[in-house]
């Protein structure tokens, strides 16, 4: 009997405390996971009374979560697609609001034993695509066709490079769609392009395989892999994607990262939501953003805040 009482009291306590604390949930892009986690950590020190739940599996997870009202914010590495907008509209009767809160670029990476330093967008299309809508030239399957045959193993011995092992993300990822749209000109991925469930998995594989080439969000780059400079075509001078310059706006693979919220027309965001939005627009959050390897977004959020949160 006493045990039962204790259990019931605990349950009551837990449920009360759960009611008392405000919770914000964020769902979406794997690309933005580090940024959102860093923001949430910093936000916790500012507002310890607000709990933030983060679930990052891929951009495609955000629209359903916002439509079903199970998340306060959606973070996406691409805007809503038209189909997703239609679905949202049909269910809720209005459009979600999106703000460009950050930008990042996709970096193309290769193994350190591979002597390649730069690659053209055209060659990327020839490696990754089946129809080659952008380049229209013949497909490339081996490193030799790109003019690279010998790598240098860690021991210093020469290493023969073979077939290119192209690595990409799974179709839930916004990066998959971005790469498809911007590098493959909307064409299809070759069926031999490996689909891995995370950027970390791509990096681990590139680390181990001298024949691998893959794309990752610039904030994920590690020193264990080599970032290739990406240039528009063969003749162009490499516009530099290596190291710091990957974060400049020069890269042809820069994209906008969005924070979405759902606000029925005429309503204001809740106090908790406003607190987080204000934090995202603050200088502290912008510092975190640059530190974790992203570029600043535009001013749409801070302007929107003036209207809705005062």
């Amino acid at each position, binding site marked *: 009997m006493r045990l039962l009482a204790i259990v019931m009291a605990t349950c009551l306590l837990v449920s009360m405390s759960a009611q008392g604390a405000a919770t914000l949930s964020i769902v979406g892009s794997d690309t933005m996971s580090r940024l959102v986690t860093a923001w949430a950590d910093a936000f916790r020190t500012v507002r310890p009374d607000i709990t933030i739940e983060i679930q990052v599996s891929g951009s495609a997870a955000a629209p359903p979560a916002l439509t079903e009202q199970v998340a306060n914010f959606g973070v996406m590495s691409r805007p809503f697609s038209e189909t997703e907008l239609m679905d949202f509209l049909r269910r809720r009767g209005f459009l979600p609001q999106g703000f460009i809160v950050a930008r990042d670029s996709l970096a193309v990476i290769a193994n350190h034993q591979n002597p390649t330093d730069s690659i053209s967008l055209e060659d990327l299309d020839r490696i990754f695509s089946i129809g080659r809508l952008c380049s229209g030239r013949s497909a490339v399957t081996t490193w030799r066709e790109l003019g690279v045959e010998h790598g240098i193993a860690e021991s210093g011995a020469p290493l023969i490079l073979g077939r290119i092992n192209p690595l990409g993300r799974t179709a839930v990822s916004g990066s998959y769609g971005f790469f498809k749209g911007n590098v493959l000109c909307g064409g299809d991925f070759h069926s031999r392009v490996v*689909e891995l469930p995370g950027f970390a998995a791509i990096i681990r594989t590139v680390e181990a395989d001298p024949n691998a080439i893959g794309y990752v969000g610039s904030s994920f780059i590690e020193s264990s892999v080599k970032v290739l400079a990406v240039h528009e075509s063969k003749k162009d001078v490499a516009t530099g994607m290596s190291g710091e310059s990957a974060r400049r706006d020069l890269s042809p693979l820069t994209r906008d990262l969005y924070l979405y919220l759902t606000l029925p027309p005429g309503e204001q965001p809740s106090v908790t939501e406003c607190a987080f939005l204000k934090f995202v627009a603050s200088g502290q959050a912008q510092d975190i953003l640059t530190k974790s390897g992203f570029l600043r977004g*535009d001013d749409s959020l801070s302007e929107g805040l003036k209207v809705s949160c005062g």
Partner: protein
Amino acid sequence: MANKRLIIDVISAGMIRVASVMILLVILGLFAQIAFTALPLFESPSSSVDVLPATRAGPAAELKVTQDSGANDAGSLPGLIDDHRLALSKIDPAAVPEPKRGSWLDARDTTIEQVHLKAENDGLVPSVLTRYFIPAGIQAMSNISLSRHFVVLDRAGVIHVYRLGRSQARSTFTEEFEVSDINRVDWLDESTFALYSHEEQRLVRSVKALTNTLPLADLFSFRQYEGYPQPTLTWQPRVVDGAESKYSLVPLLWGTMSAALFSLMLALPVAMGAAIYVGYYMPPVFREAIKPMIEMIAAFPGVVIAGIAMLWLAPRLHHALAECIGIVLTVPIIVALSGLFLNQYFQTQLGSYFSKRLLMVVVLVLVIAIYTGAKLGESVEGLFFEDSVVLWFERYYGLSVSYFNGVLVGIALGIAVFPTIFSLAEEAIFSTPKGAATGSLALGASPWQSFIDGVLPVAAPGIVAAIMLGLSRAIGETMILLLLSGNTPIQSSNPLEGMRSVAATLAIELPEAGVDSTHYRVLFFSALALFALTFLINTCAQLLKRRWRRRYGVVA
């Protein structure tokens, strides 16, 4: 007292019955749910045209309005609404509305046309050009929707809905209205279009057509897609709006089955060998210690095995392929040979205790075998394969070796499947009546002869069940395939290539598929197809089991 016991008996028996019926109902319900989700996929689009009254501001009309007012969000949604919309790019000038009886409509994808121009010299396929014949002549037509459908209203008042490209989905729908009034057809959303009248651009009707259907043949046969050199079996759902989805289940089913096969090729000999030794030769005292240890492996989650294989095994397998092949080929031979010479250590007497040196000898033999295998592989590679088996195969046979490949999947999946097969097979062998073996031994047969002729026939149904259960686990396993197969939807019987399984595809794509979209239904259908496949295999196994049971007249 006895009465009380009786009541408990009755109650518990009733509860057990209720529970089993409920479980059955839940399973049936789940199955029905999957079937009802998947099967509308094949509905004929013509039977499902659904008219919404034009006067009512249905959801379609609402959408239209908000689409236009979407401009206030323009900053956050750059150019979304109209950028991807394709247009019928080519209408044969001779065939457009004029002729009284019939017109040809040539539809061509704009994107492909561009490629065609770009790549003319490169021998790329010209764009897929689809001809549609409209016998009554064209009154009005829409542009191409995001799901690549377009609507043609002919002069007889018949509405045709076509899908551009691979198949001619065609839904005809006759309605009594003044055709001459109508001059514009437009999509309101992916599945609804509207007919507008001549003068004041009035909306006459909005029609909901089921565009999320697919002919069954699309899932299983070769299809010519735009931009592809020849008809292919391809899996690549649309993620960019306006692109053509390719839903061929063949590479996925192939991938699932080949992964299961590779894993069984590895797990089966090991599991059976272990099961025979533990269940037949080993004294029960040791069996009780060793069996739970092996079954512990079953407690390893797939993701743990997959993670270890991905980070540790994959790079090693890739760099030392020849050594690995050498080990796989050499170890069984050396172990068998050593059995010949070290017979006194490898006790093969039924239920005899280990010789004290057994463990030492076994470990020693294994170490020697692995080392020899690796060295042998290395030197053979150096002598005959120009120092690299991978490059040699690529150069002379065009065989490609992927980083994520069937061997890797087979090893990881084999480890996951092994304890299941072992456990059940061992149980079947151990629980055969002891008389079968001992009687045979008493008549002078060797232990192995007694096993083959006395124990195995009785245990066979149980062993078949064990293999089936292992196969089911291999087919259903998700994480190992997701992380190690590379998810490349290619069909190849080369075990050094990757694959993509149905289960991994479901895990990747189900979260992003819109509810009741074509993609969503195709995914559910793939689950159904997989179920049908396992069901077929299991049925065959059951028939086999029944036959054996009848022949040997035992209940195992």
